[in-house]
């Protein structure tokens, strides 16, 4: 396959950056998208040019690191996958492909296609945990009966890999899908009840302080989320937040 790549290049956080065109040849449809970029980088290195910086780690859809906005969609054209699970057979010979970093004020670009997602870490640290006494007399979690429906929903929420595609795709750069998944995962389980009240208040507060936008329920996040996290979680977070605020 012959392709024209239009890639966002930016030297560092301060640099203005811009789109640079790279014609590539001999791309196999069986390559993964990241392998295609590896090949491009190999060429650039051989030519003595600066390779394109992009994030990746597990390359099997579980770490959430790979974060590219490809041809106008978070994680590219297919749904329910991360970039590392995207293959070149999803494109056609002769295609022009735009490759951009996640765009949000709360996710500043570090270099090229790499953004700083530590805002998510700070939201997690604000309340995305439970405190368990580990003195030796801790109750075995498996001994606590949990309704099947709630266990399933908590598990679904827990599959969020923190990739940030929801923020990247949302027209408001809202992080509500991510935060609501993290809130729901605990809100649905008895272990999460102790800190439920403070958790939702603190996590929403941190989310706002990081500069993410307000959800307008367009539902784009749910469509683009590689793990199919449901909008129901946002409604649950809203309920929890409103109830916790009224209680004070």
């Amino acid at each position: 396959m012959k392709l024209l790549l239009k890639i966002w290049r930016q030297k560092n956080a301060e640099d203005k950056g811009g789109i640079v065109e790279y014609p590539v040849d001999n791309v196999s449809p069986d390559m993964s998208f990241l392998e295609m970029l590896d090949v491009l980088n190999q060429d650039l290195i051989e030519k003595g040019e600066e390779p394109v910086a992009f994030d990746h780690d597990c390359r099997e859809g579980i770490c959430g690191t790979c974060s590219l906005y490809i041809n106008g969609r978070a994680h590219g054209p297919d749904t329910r996958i991360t970039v590392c699970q995207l293959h070149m057979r999803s494109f056609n010979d002769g295609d022009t492909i735009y490759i951009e970093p996640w765009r949000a004020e709360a996710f500043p670009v570090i270099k090229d296609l790499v953004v700083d997602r530590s805002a998510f870490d700070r939201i997690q640290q604000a309340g995305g945990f439970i405190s368990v006494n580990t003195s030796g007399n801790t109750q075995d979690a498996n001994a606590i009966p949990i309704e099947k429906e709630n266990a399933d929903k908590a598990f679904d929420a827990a599959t969020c890999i923190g990739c940030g595609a929801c923020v990247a795709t949302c027209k408001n750069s809202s992080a509500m899908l991510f935060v609501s998944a993290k809130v729901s995962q605990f809100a649905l389980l008895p272990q999460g009840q102790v800190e439920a009240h403070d958790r939702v208040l603190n996590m929403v507060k941190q989310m706002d302080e990081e500069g993410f936008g307000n959800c307008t329920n367009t539902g784009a996040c749910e469509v683009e989320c590689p793990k199919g996290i449901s909008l129901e979680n946002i409604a649950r977070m809203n309920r929890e937040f409103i109830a916790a605020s009224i209680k004070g």
Partner: protein
Amino acid sequence: MAGMFNSSVGRKFAMALSAFFLMLFLVMHVSINFTSVFSADLFNEMSHFMGTNPVVQGLMQPILIFGVVFHFVMGFILEAKNKSARGVSYAKNVAKDNSTWMSRNMLLSGVVILAFLGLHFYDFWVHEMTIKYVEGDMSGLINPDNAESGFRYYEELREKFVSPVRVGIYIVAFVLLALHLLHGFNSAFQSVGANNKYTKALTGFSKVYSIGIPALFIFIALFHHFTH
């Protein structure tokens, strides 16, 4: 509690409450307007009641005005915040693949509705306020010195729908209201945290409401336009 409305979720909650209020108001408004299609007398009676009742005028009307102003001011604030949450935009973005046009253009549909509300205020409200509170004529009669002349409301309504331009503007505004509601109705439920086993049924009802109510308003306008 006080801090609630300084948060993203709290503001959305307030936005949804004002929207629920407006949606209830629309039901009442269209019901009264609809009486004009089959009974000039009933329409006159109801208009006179709404226009002179102290509870309606002194309490409900100010709440309504506050509700409308709150809704669009909050709408502008939220949109401005959301715009600034993305400093650099994408060179290529295909939003239509993951969201509806209506959901992405609430501000646009809202601004058209707002422009229409401006005209509507000028047409009916300023007119009513002038007659009732400036000129001091609370009679509601065509000729205040002649009790036999009958109420003026129905005649005034018919008069407004003679001009095809006005009717055209009216239709455009209500089509945009329908688009606003096609996203807004369900969105408001989601904002207050109601997303559960009833959501599917509600989605059906929301379509009926969102298309039905504006369609009724349009029908009333066309009815008077063509029967004048």
